[in-house]
Each structure stands twice: as C-alpha cells, then as structure tokens.
C-alpha cells in the first residue's frame, strides 16, 4: 500500500498553515513511520489542480488541512472523501480550485485517484496574514500527529487489491 501524507495550507495565513504544522509534528514524533519507503510525506501551499499530480500513483492519501466550520478551534475532523465533496471552498485563490472541487473534478473525469482518501481537518480560528498558529491549534498538534499515525496504520492494514 503506497500512501501519501500531504500537508496543505498557506503558511502566511496563520491557522491556514495548520496542516503543514501537523505534518511536521507527525514527522518529528514518529520518525520510524515517516522513514518508511512506502510512505511519502509532502507539503503544498495552494495546490489547485496540481493536487491531482501530487496524488498520482498512490493507493491511499491522507490530506491534512485547516478547515473552518462552527466547531471549536482546534477540533479535529476526520472526513472521508464523500464528506469532503460536500465542503464548499470559501477562499478565492488559484483561480478557485480548492481541494473539494479538484477531487470532484477528478472523480467526474475518472482520473486515477488513490482508492482511499482521508482528510484530517483542523478547525482554525485566525486566517489573517501572519506566520504563527493560534494557541488552540498548537495545543492540538500532538493529537493530530497521533491521528495521522493511527490513520496510516489503518490504511496499512487494508489488504492490497
């Protein structure tokens, strides 16, 4: 099972960088898993349609990104692909191609995507320009790292087809 762990977000927009921070924390906390040759960990700020190329060739993908809903800041959401497609994008950048729309486009075009996609969303509170994460996010990073690690184990237990 080839797995990609992808931190997504703009590091210059405060909590939007939560996904990048979480993937960093996971690498520091679980170096043994992170060095596994079947795992690829990468980071991307605003992938747009490039997301499709980043997911190409993997059996499973764990996307870690900041989200904004009504939950308490720092809340960790675990969304399967079907749940992600319901999320609408609010930021207006890279010509409007967000994660949800890009995945939706790929499914519509029958483009080869990983069979299993999980989005770990971290509820952010401050998305204004800046490079630091809010207290609530910092406090959640260890737990997010653990969720990433557990999710990898779950994916690794799925038999290859």
């Amino acid at each position, binding site marked *: 099972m080839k797995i990609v762990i992808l931190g997504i977000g703009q590091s210059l927009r405060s909590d939007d960088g939560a996904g990048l921070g979480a993937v960093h924390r996971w690498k520091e906390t679980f170096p043994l898993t992170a060095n596994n040759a079947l795992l690829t960990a990468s980071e991307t700020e605003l992938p747009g349609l490039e997301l499709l190329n980043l997911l190409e060739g993997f059996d499973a993908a764990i996307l870690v990104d900041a989200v904004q809903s009504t939950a308490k800041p720092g809340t960790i959401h675990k969304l399967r692909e079907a749940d992600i497609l319901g999320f609408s994008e609010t930021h*207006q950048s*890279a*010509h*409007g191609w967000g994660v949800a729309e890009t995945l939706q486009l790929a499914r519509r075009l029958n483009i080869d995507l990983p069979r299993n996609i999980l989005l770990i969303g971290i509820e952010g509170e401050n998305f204004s320009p800046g490079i630091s994460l809010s207290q609530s996010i910092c406090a959640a990073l260890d737990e997010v790292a653990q969720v990433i690690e557990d999710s990898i184990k779950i994916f690794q237990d799925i038999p290859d087809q």
Partner: protein
Amino acid sequence: MKNIEVPALARVEGEGALYIRLKDGSIAEVELNIYEPPRFFEGFLEDRYFQEVPDITARICGICPVAYQMSSVQALEAALGVQISKQARDLRRLLYCAEYIESHALHIYMLQGPDLLGHESALSLAEVAPDVVKGALRLKKAGNDLLKAIGGRSVHPVNTCVGGFYRWPDVKAIKDLLPALEWALQASIETVKFASGLKYPDFEMDYEFVALTRPDEYAIYDGEILSSKGNRITVDEFENEYIETHVRHSNALHSHTIASETTYFVGPLARLNLNYEQLRPIARKAADESGLRLPLRNPFKNLLARAIELVEVCDVAIEIIENYAPKGPSFAPISIKEGQGSGASEAPRGLLYHRYIVDDRGMIRFAKITPPTAQNFAQMEADLWKYAPSVLDLSHEEATLACEHLVRSYDPCISCATHFLKLTVDRA
C-alpha cells in the same frame, strides 16, 4: 432592470467585484472594484540584494511566476550591463513557453471556456464533455512538467538568475518531455479548431493595442514596444508613454497613455494583431485554417488568440528542446555597479514592465512593476460602459453573467495587479 452587482468575481485570480449602476434605464456608473489588499512588493524589494529579486517577484503570481522572473532579470541585466548567452536566452524562452502552456490551457478550458459553452464551471463542463476537460488537464500538465524540469518545481520555479541560470537543467529530463510536447502541439491545433467553433458575443471596440514586437520572433521574452497607433518605442521609454494612476474604488492602479490620456489594451489579442506576421508556419496555418481575419477587435476572442499562441509556444518549445545541448557556464559574470535598468516581457496576460535602481553594493534602491492586468483595468471599464447597454434587455442573471464574462475574457490576475505607490489614509 436592477443594478448589476457581482460582489466576488469567480474564475479570476484574486479578489475583485464588479458594479454597474443604472439611472433611468441607462448606465450611470461602472466600477471594477479591486478590494484585494495591496501587496507592497515594490516596497519590500528595496534594500534587497539584486540577485534575490527574481525569486521574490516570482511570488507575485502562482499562474505566471516566470513572467515576473523574466522581466525582472532583464531589467537588472540592463542596470548592471550584463549580456546573457544565446543558450541562456533560449532556455528562458523555453521556460516562458512552459508557462504559456499551463496558463493558456487553464484559461481557455477552465476559466473562459465554460462561459462560451454555457457552463457554470469546468466542473459542470466535465460532466458533458469529459474528454475536453481531460485534454485540458493533460495540456496544462505538459506545461507544468516542463516548468519543473527547468525550474525545479511546477509552480514558482527557481533556477533563473541575473546573468542566466544557476545551473543547466539535466539534458535527459528536458528531452524526455518531447513526446508530451509533441502531443501538446497536436492538442493545441485541435484547441484552435475548438476555439474557432465557439460562438462569441457580438462586440467590438476600437482598441489601441500595445505589445512587444521583434522582427524575427513572435515576441514573448523581449522586444520593443509597439502600439497599433503606430508608436514604436524601446522598453526604456515605456514610462514616457504610459502612466499608472490611482482611482478611488480600486487597490490596483489604472493605466493610460500619457499623450492622449486614453486606455489601451495588452494581452493575447494585442500580440496576435501586432505580431501575426512573426508567427511560425504551424501556428500561422492553424490560424488561417480557423478563418482568422485580423484585426480582431472582439475582447471575447482573446480565447482564440490564446489558442493560436498555444500552437506557437508548443512549436517553439519542441525546437528549443531538440537543440538543447548546454555547454560552458550557465551564467554570465557580473561586476556590481550602480545603475538603472528596465525590462519587459509578455506575460500570458500581456505586457509586464519592471524598472530597478541598484546601488554600488548591488542593493535595490527603487523598484517599479507594471503588471498587465493593471494596464487593462481602465480598458475593461471602458468596455463595460459600451457593452453593458447591449445586455440590459436580457434577464438580470444573464446580463450579470455577460458582463462577468467580458471581464473574464481578459483573464485578469487581480493578485498581480494590486499594488500601491503609496498608501494614503482618508480621515474625513
């Protein structure tokens, strides 16, 4: 008919709004309101070492970073009196081709195309014409892969420096892309057929077109500045002829010609009208077979011009790759001295001008950047004054969409265009 209000323009890069206010059934006010905050790039280039400039200005745009690198390195090479090798110039042209491929494919199929095909977005287009959208993604990928092979990554490439390139890209990595580009060339020829078969809104303006020009090439990387009014100037003379001014409702500056204080048009339509003669045979054939009649004065047909340019850049890219055999140093030696220089190139959206003053330690003392979208804003508003009355009989929703489409046909890059010379605070 109610006022036309689009508080957040979709399928454009950046944040802007469109307002058309009506009074007694006729247009009273047209406003492209650019509320994306100014980004102060020119300000924070000051006191930076000249060699940092191409990597900083590349960050102005995720769609056209190469354009910002190309105009800035040429301006700094002029300031420092550096001559680059022909090999380096060829590689820069190749890098620019890569950017055109990804940017034009995106705009044709994902941004403006859906308007002409009656779709809300590429997502809904994908439902009825999946092969079209799939082809578009493949075309875009060919461009992004080439960007990556030369510049290390597919968005915001590095490697370009004042004097040439930090290192020559791997020959095999570049040559391996030939099949993808051969495919892209054919797909581009098909794109011209696709574009010429679309039904464009009936609208023409008597534009002053402005673009770079060269006698020997379809000018993208460098050239002199030509206007359809006949004026031909060197890049150094740009600021004598064209000026940017503030308007109250926008965080982007608006451009005018100094002599007549009129608007002008930069971008694909301007390039094609002024430089058709310099197209290579394959692009010319594709253009002629599409039934092209110049001059094109319909801004919606920017899309057709982009399609013809796609053919041109794929053809050029293939030739440069076939001849790619780098020898010797990848950059010219530089002796630092005080100086001033300007540079211009044709970003996918139009003429992009830079000017820098460098001190005797190589530090930037002054930076000026005039992006294409800022030059086009005043023209877009002028277009809307003329176009909007013709759509007022449509339903409110259709009229709004028609005006939005007009703006989108310019492929405005609002993020690139938001900059201020200085910030004034009104405390009335």
